[in-house]
């Protein structure tokens, strides 16, 4: 009798274990996430793109708390970041716009966000030997990539303007002058005292073309979205939201953990897909969490003249880059740095493996890029799936 009872008890124990394992509870990092609710909040008000937070919350109360955080902290943070970093803000409101309007040698008071952003730009400018350069605002306007060309109301108004700036290339004297102007970015200095933060425009921060003076001007589009993504992700984490991700325009993302994936060995990982510039699908997929991602390339915000692509990323020679790097993505700790580094990688190119060599040396960063010579080729040191069957070189 005793053995029969023992056998029955064993069977019951095993059944209970099976039922428990088969779906009663899901754990990520020790947290039961089986009842988590997916919430997506979006705004189109900042950085000319869609910003979204995609978060898993534990309850309806948490959902309400997220909504309050969104309206009271996240949206104001995005608004402040855009005002501060955009060159299109009014100079009396935005720090970068104020710097751009300043005369050579002028000391410009800025907010701490802009101060840190310029500091980061100076660092990456030095690290990349000038391949990343935010002082290309004049060149971007020359080549037709500023707001006035994109809002549908363009009319020639400046000395270098053409009737159709996306089919008529600019005069070389402006290209050369503005490239020379951008090189003066390393003369920008930062000052900080008890009363505030300052960015100083170099005394020689200007060029003259046909009697018209153009002063050094910044365009922080290369890192602005990354700065915003980092800030929003920090707000989520500070407020206890651990599962989800932030996307600013798709080019800058910060991944937390994924509550919808519980697989052993893949707990909390998101599957991040990278857009294929050739057909709009996805060419690469990488599983990751707790990491920032940025992508730069020449397949968006660009035009073609004479078979050559002119994009919004300006090379050291003052001309939109044409190095064969069609798209470059970087996974690492900071979205702002990923933004700056991927921009630099596009400019560096791959003729001698410069971009991949540079990215390989970055501690805690992994890259994937497409380099086009005769055929698209993926270069990467990232584990992931090649979704299109392109030729592949693993670093």
């Amino acid at each position, binding site marked *: 009798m005793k053995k029969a009872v023992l056998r029955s008890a064993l069977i019951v124990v095993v059944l209970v274990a099976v039922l428990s394992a088969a779906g009663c509870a899901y754990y990520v990092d020790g947290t039961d996430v089986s009842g988590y609710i997916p919430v997506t909040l979006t705004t189109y008000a900042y950085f000319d793109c869609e910003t979204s937070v995609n978060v898993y919350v534990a309850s309806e109360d948490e959902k309400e708390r997220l909504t309050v955080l969104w309206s009271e902290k996240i949206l104001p943070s995005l608004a402040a970041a855009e005002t501060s970093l955009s060159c299109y803000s009014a100079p009396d409101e935005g720090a970068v716009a104020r710097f751009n309007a300043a005369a050579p040698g002028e000391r410009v008071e800025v907010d701490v966000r802009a101060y840190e952003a310029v500091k980061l730009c100076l660092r990456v400018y030095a690290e990349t030997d000038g391949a990343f350069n935010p002082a290309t605002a004049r060149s971007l306007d020359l080549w037709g990539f500023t707001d006035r060309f994109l809002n549908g109301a363009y009319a020639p108004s400046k000395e270098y303007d053409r009737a159709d700036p996306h089919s008529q290339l600019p005069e070389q004297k402006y290209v050369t002058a503005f490239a020379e102007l951008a090189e003066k970015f390393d003369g920008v200095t930062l000052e900080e005292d008890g009363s505030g933060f300052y960015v100083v425009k170099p005394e020689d921060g200007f060029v003259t073309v046909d009697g018209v003076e153009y002063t050094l001007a910044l365009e922080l589009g290369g890192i602005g979205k990354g700065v915003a993504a980092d800030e929003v992700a920090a707000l989520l984490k500070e407020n206890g939201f651990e599962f989800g991700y932030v996307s600013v325009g798709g080019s800058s993302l910060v991944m937390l953990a994924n509550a919808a994936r519980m697989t052993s060995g893949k707990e909390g990982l998101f599957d991040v897909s990278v857009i294929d510039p050739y057909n709009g699908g996805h060419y690469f997929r990488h599983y990751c969490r707790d990491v920032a991602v940025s992508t730069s390339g020449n397949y*968006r915000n660009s035009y073609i003249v004479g078979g050559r692509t002119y994009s919004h990323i300006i090379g050291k020679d003052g001309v939109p880059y044409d190095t064969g790097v069609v798209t470059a993505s970087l996974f690492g700790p900071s979205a702002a740095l990923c933004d700056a580094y991927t921009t630099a990688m596009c400019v560096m190119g791959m003729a001698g493996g410069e971009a991949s060599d540079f990215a390989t040396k970055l501690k805690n960063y992994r890259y994937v890029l497409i380099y086009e010579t005769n055929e698209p080729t993926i270069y990467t040191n990232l584990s992931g799936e090649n979704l299109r069957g392109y030729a592949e070189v693993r670093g």
Partner: protein
Amino acid sequence: MSGKAFSRVRGGKFFKRADIIVYVLIAVVSIVLLLVFLLPKEEDLTGFEITYDGARVLTYEFDGGLDVEDGYLDRVSIEKNDGGVYITLTTDDGVNTCFVDLERRSVKMTDADCSVSKDCTYMPALDGDGGAIICVPNRIRIIPVGGISSPVTG
């Protein structure tokens, strides 16, 4: 239980062949259930939602059809053609049309009056492989139903 049967049980081995078969079956069922519930699922798209400025406009379930939110009933039109359904949404920001491929269980933006470049019409079809279709100027978003969309960078 009769005295004979009781003696058979009492005098028998602790685990008989039948017991082991039961345990093996339970183990197999256990593993199958674990795989079903815990492995990531690369499934077909079950449906999608279209949002305008963050608010849901409609939900389309491949096995359930179209459900339009109140306030948008006169702004959504459908046309069955090409083996699927064209859904056109008119908002204060513009007009977007997407094509629902019923055979492939996917949805793609096919037309929009958003900008000259119409970036959204070049975004990949939503087919259960992750991602979202976004039209920034018209503030339109197409995402899989029942979850957050997988992150896409580019």
